[in-house]
């Protein structure tokens, strides 16, 4: 029973790690994306740089994903 509870809590933790980082990345990308579109509207040559900035907040989700994988397979 205790083992089952622990497994359940690990699953909840893994879910929270991916879910909350996804939420954080979404909020960050909202602003970065709006700014990127603004920059491209003024100067289309900025597309490449804007794209890189757009992708940066997604690293937050990868951190969350790593934590959740560690939680499920290592713990």
């Amino acid at each position, binding site marked *: 029973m205790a083992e089952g509870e622990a497994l359940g809590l690990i699953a909840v933790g893994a879910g929270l790690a991916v879910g909350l980082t996804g939420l954080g990345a979404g909020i960050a990308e*909202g*602003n970065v994306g*709006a*700014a990127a*579109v*603004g*920059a491209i*509207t*003024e100067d289309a040559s900025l597309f490449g740089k804007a794209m890189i900035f757009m992708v940066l907040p997604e690293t937050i989700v990868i951190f969350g994903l790593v934590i959740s994988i560690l939680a499920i397979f290592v713990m």
Partner: protein
Amino acid sequence: MFKRSVRKGNYAYTVTRVKAKKSHLLKEEDYDKMIQMSVPEISRYISEAGYQKEMTDLAGKFSGIALVEHATYQNMANVFKSILGASQGELAIMVAAYLEKWDIWNLKVILRGKSYGVDASGIKEDLVPAGKVDEASLDKLISLDSVDDVLNEYSKVGKVTFPADVISEYKETGNAGVIEDFLDKFHYQRLLDSISPYTQPTKIFLDYIRKEIDVVNLRTIMKLKGEGIYGEQVMKYYIPGGMQIDSKFAQVLANAETVAAASGDMSRLEVYEDYIKPVMDSDNVTNKAVVTSIKKYQEDQAKKMAHMYPLSVLPVIDFMVHKETEVRNIRIVARGVDGGLSRETIKGLLVI
């Protein structure tokens, strides 16, 4: 008029666009080069600096100094309209309220045009459609015959109620100046009302506008002193709502007969130490130099606030202040060169 929505503004998008536009503004070295050019060379130079479309559009209609003047105003109007179009929510409300001064400018041009019997195309050439009132409404205002009709129509379009005493004074004297004075006061009152000081950036914006009112009042007092006007006569142009210059202090400044006599009282103002005093201490004090220096203070205030909160209305207002200054500077250079002024004199008139 402006309180249609209380949605949060799209700051990231609008501020990025504004910052990109700001990076293309002319710098001090550009003015140094332009001062040494002729008017056609200035036209070509500004064409390459972002005024190409307007210069090409208007080249068939105007030439020389008139082309530079009309193209720069048209460009400013287009830029401001694009900012207004891009902004949303509370940001759009504040930008629209700030740009209402151009609606009032246009109404003044129309009123003056009607008073002096200028034809419709002549009036239209001098308009700067940078505000909330669209060009179709401006065309309708121009097409009306009398000043009364224009005021009636504008009160609907601009949601302004002209007080009965202002209208009756205008009818008695035939002087549209009373309406213009009312509009200036009305604009600042509505602008102050449109800013909700619930966040730090909007508080700073409100303070900036109150400082701008101080600057406008101080410039009016200085200019009138230059014309030999002082005392009670000055007070009818006083705009309430300033930060440091209340009506009592304005009265004190207005009562001084010359700029030098007002110097002691002006030392209480924030603008005095770094902007007015150096001009007053210089060998050749002119009212124009004092007024230019006060304008520089206003621009520096905008610059200072722009970096405080990147995702707010502040960088947008800072850009609009700088764009307006750029247009004014280009016109000063072009007129100065055309009028044969010395390079030093032209440079002294610029706000950089």
